[in-house]
């Protein structure tokens, strides 16, 4: 079982959900992003989702776009992201990467899988790669023992949903809201339905993303999902802060609030 699987099992045994926190590699700087992710882990984030920034992130809302732009303007490269994986994985928290397909294709699919595995990454979330186009990635992830997380959506048909989860390993990512990333005042009504549909098709843990921003929302999602995935709200802590220290303080506080939330599942 992968390290992610262990984290999900452990949380399940504790009667709580896993908290997954996302941060773009190189935001605000390479060192700054390492510090941010270490702070998140210390404050209770279980799994780090490291987003490798991409110039045209069509699934992302304004917050992640801005952070990605800052990282890219700072010159972050895919090789830096792999270095960050290594540094953060040293904390003991599982690190899963997430990126759009083109950066992987340009790095070389097999080379990326090899280097991600040797950096200690657990796998890759692919927001714009569907299993039908993924032959190379299926082979590379098998060869290097990496998890594969494809997305499922409320609009996925039952047949597609089954096909997609069959190709997943580690966990399944349920995009609970039809729309781009970004914290929302309400979590989605579609999410529990989608999670229930996934559970009929697989025993893999299900993470729910898109929209969670508060401990209370995290608790609500923890009531039906195995993992609560939070991105924009955490990133905003850094974007809105007057300086780096202030950003880290806010980040720790929100991480702790969310960690409390996933330990207080609301039915």
């Amino acid at each position: 079982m992968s390290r992610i699987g262990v984290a999900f099992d452990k949380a399940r045994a504790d009667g709580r959900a896993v908290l997954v926190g996302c941060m773009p590699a190189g935001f605000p700087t390479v060192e700054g992003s390492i510090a941010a992710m270490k702070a998140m882990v210390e404050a209770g984030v279980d799994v780090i989702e490291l987003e490798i920034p991409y110039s045209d992130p069509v699934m992302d809302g304004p917050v992640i776009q801005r952070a990605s732009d800052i990282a890219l303007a700072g010159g972050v490269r895919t090789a830096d992201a792999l270095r960050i994986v290594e540094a953060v994985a040293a904390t003991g928290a599982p690190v899963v990467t997430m990126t759009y397909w083109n950066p992987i294709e340009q790095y070389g699919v097999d080379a990326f899988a090899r280097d991600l595995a040797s950096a200690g990454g657990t796998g890759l979330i692919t927001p714009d790669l569907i299993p039908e186009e993924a032959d190379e990635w299926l082979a590379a992830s098998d060869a290097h023992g990496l998890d594969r997380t494809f997305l499922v959506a409320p609009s996925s048909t039952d047949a597609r949903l089954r096909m997609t989860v069959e190709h997943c390993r580690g966990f399944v990512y349920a995009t609970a809201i039809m729309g781009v990333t970004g914290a929302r005042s309400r979590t989605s009504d579609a999410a529990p339905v989608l999670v229930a549909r996934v559970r009929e098709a697989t025993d893999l843990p299900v993470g729910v993303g898109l929209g969670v921003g508060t401990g209370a929302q995290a608790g609500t999602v923890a009531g039906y999902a195995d993992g609560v995935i939070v991105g924009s709200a955490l990133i905003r802590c850094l974007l809105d802060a007057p300086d780096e220290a202030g950003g880290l303080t806010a980040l720790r506080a929100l991480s702790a609030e969310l960690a409390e939330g996933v330990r207080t599942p609301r039915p």
Partner: protein
Amino acid sequence: MSATDPTPAGQVPDAAGHFGRFGGRFVPEALVAALDELDAAYRKAMSDESFLAEFDALLRDYAGTPSLLYRAERFSAKIGARVLLKREDLNHTGAHKVRNVLGQALLTRRMGKRRVIAETGAGQHGVATATAAALFDLECVVYMGEVDTQRQALNVARMRMLGATVVPVTTGSRTLKDAMNEAMRDWVANVDDTHYLIGTAAGPHPFPEMVRDFVRGIGDEARAQCLDLTGALPDAVAACVGGGSNALGIFHAFVPDAGVRLYGFEAGGEGVETGRHAASITGGTSGVLHGTRTYVLQNADGQTIESHSISAGLDYPGVGPEHAWLHDSGRATYLPVTDAEAMAAFELLCRTEGIIPAIESSHALAGALKIAPALAAELGREPVIVVNLSGRGDKDVHTAGEYFGILDREQ
């Protein structure tokens, strides 16, 4: 595959939209259902007599097609080739784009959707979409890079007059690619009631194939008109290539005609060697952008590089996957044309024929000028070149006026 192979048009794309190693679908899962729905609606429509009759009637009675094939004698004399202009500039709304838009608007209605969104660069596709939305009583939102809203202010006004909402996009390079990102984001969120009316033969399957089919009348008409006018097929067909719709539209009918050379002219901007250009095939590498695998302007990490062209409609760092495939197979030849070359051809057409072309189309005119001497030498006679005059230059009067320094100083 060589140019003499029998028509590849029947075999590609495959059912999943692959043109050889290009094309396909690189999209969020949330969009797959909508793409499947669109694919089904499109395939059903293409074999439905009533749909085809309605589309034909709209093209004829509303858009004003078939467009003329015009012997540009004075222009021809200047360039040493017999140039036949496919006058898509005379279509309603002023470009070839109206054909695609009417096809997709009909499909939108068939799918029971009431809102259309579009990206636009030059504004031509936005204007065409706003036009069809008015005609079909659909809500219309057009995403346009902020830079382009300034370059093409006239078209922004036209869209608003037609009742569309124009959203200036302020992310990234603030041009066409960013407008496309924003439109995709809108679509993911509103896919239930919204059709994304993509304006070129790019994007995820089935868009490249579907858009080509909606604009292929350009080539079907031109082929018959050329036979009528000259008694023979042309030696070459020339078109500008942004995303690639007008070029595919005119190429498609000629692909099986092995003796007809197909030339696509990309925007060479300040010169491909300067890095400031929009020539994705000539100056790019294979990658994934906006839902499809194709040639892309990108750095070694796969980050998109900003494109540059004097022509907003060609200012895009990717190209439709069918062109990538026609390039790899050798069936079509792609060459860059610089801003300066395009503007010289723009001026030449104005002065010799009394036709103000779109700056996009001026790239095709400049291309014809470029290939004429070698073609003439090879054939031992003046070549016959059909040039797709994809649009009119009204929208470009400000840009061209500044370029040539002929605007009176504003107070």
